[in-house]
Structures are given as C-alpha cells and as structure tokens.
C-alpha cells in the first residue's frame, strides 16, 4: 500500500519526499480537527462525576 503510493508519486526523490510529507500532514490534520473531535465524546475515557 505505502510502497504503491510511493511508486505512484511523480518526480524525483526530493519531490516525492515532500509530497509524501504534505499528504501525511493533510491526513493528520483531517484526523486532528475533524475526526477526533467527532469521536472523542463517543468514547468518554475521562469520566469524573459520581452517581451516573
């Protein structure tokens, strides 16, 4: 999978490396700002109140 992505990226080593970094950054940003805030209330790992 990653091997295929790497082989599919155009350009020389430097261009591919930078493109791969940007892609990884984009995925991380979508997770951090969209996916995680949506998931977090549904897993409730830090419960603090009593009696519920």
């Amino acid at each position, binding site marked *: *999978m990653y091997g295929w992505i790497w082989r599919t990226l155009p350009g020389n080593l430097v261009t591919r490396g930078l493109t791969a970094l940007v892609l990884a950054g984009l995925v991380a940003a979508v997770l951090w700002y969209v996916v995680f805030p949506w998931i977090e209330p549904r897993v409730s790992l*830090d419960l603090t109140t009593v009696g519920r």
Partner: protein
Amino acid sequence: MAIPWGTILWQMLRRTRDPVRCGGVFGHYPDPMRAALRVLGDLSVTAGLVVLLFCAYLLWGTGSYTAGQQALLREELLAEGVPPGGEAGEGRGGPPGPIRLGGAVAMLTIPRLGDDYRYAVVEGVDQDRLRMGPGHYPGTAMPGKIGNFVLSGHRTTYAAPFNRIDELRRGDLILVDAREARYTYRVTGKRVVDPAEIGVVAPVPGRPDREPTRALITLSTCHPEYSAAQRLIVSGELEERADRLGRSG
C-alpha cells in the same frame, strides 16, 4: 562497528524502484497471500499510528478548546466584579444572582498546585460543561453556603484541571472567588470511591438524610489517571469568608 545506514537506506529505496518488482498495489509480491498480508500489515501500522495520534489529541489537543472557553468564563466573571487573578478586592458585591447552566460560578485557586493554578468554574457537570473547565454540580450548595459545594473536573483531557488534586494534603488551601466574597476552604481529606457512590455529593457527605450545618467543598475526578474505574474525592471545609469591597448588602 559502523552500521552503513546510508547504504541500507539507498538499497531500500532502490528496491521500491526496481522495475522487475513494480506493479499495482498487489503487484509487489506475486503470491496473493503475501500481498494480502502486506496490505494487512500496512493497515495495522496505520491503525497504530492513528491510535497514537488520538492519544496525543486527548492529552494535548483537547486543552485548546478548554483554554478558549476559560477565557470566556473569566470575562464573564470579570464583568461581575471577580478579577481573573482571583485576588480579593473590589467587586460588584451584593448577593449572587441565579447562575444559568454553562455560566461562570467562581474562580478556583489552589496554591499547592502552583502560583498560576486558576480555573473558572462552570455551572453543570455534563460532558459539554466539563470541557469548559471544572464544573459545579447543579443543586449542590453554592460557594461558601451551608452544605456541600461539589466540583468535578477532568483528570487527563480538556486541560486536565484536576490532574494533580491527588497531591493535596490536609490543611491545603482551596480558594473560591465568587461574586460576593472570597471563600477560603481547607482540605480535610481525600479518598478513592466507586463511581456509583453518590453519597459523596450529599449536603452531609455519606449521610443523605441529614441536614447540613457546615459549609463543605468536594472535588471529584477520575481515578486512577487515564481510567474511569474509580473516583478520587478531595474534601474540605470552609474556614473564612472575605466580602468583596463595594458589597451593598
């Protein structure tokens, strides 16, 4: 012995560009079983990285939301005459009005946890309110009043306001700056209880049937850290009330 990292890295990169091995997603390995395992391996590594990133988000990412909400709560308190530093001084005075759910209750200062340990307490302990900061259980006593002033706060996420309340010792100060006065509580004890033990929030803790005669404070958070198995409870009793200047009675 020197490890030829440069050569190893170059060989790895060369392998991926080897025309004989090139193909589609599954083309790298002619055997479909190996190809499937390869994809499964990639997905597992990805899942691991995503979970790690999620943990980082819980610990550090959620705090920025709380910081923003705290700023709003502090502004609300400042408008009501409670300085953000929590220091005693001039204020609006007078009896506190009713506080709506999600509104600011008071500033909480705990010197033992650092000179800059200050949180605005929000009214309500549901999920949405506790993300804003420590929350006051609706229906329990208001600051300084006879009964039990009960607060709850996150231990590890959303700026983790109650992360270190396990460090509190008997006699430590808990300062609560409400609109009308600064209330000074002293820690009397702490213990770990079952999450179902609702008696700790009663006006007289553990004695739900009794009428309160003393002004108490109770802090609750999860325990152990990173778990929701138990609750850590810190108890205190009111020692002093200092009215704000400009109090109109």
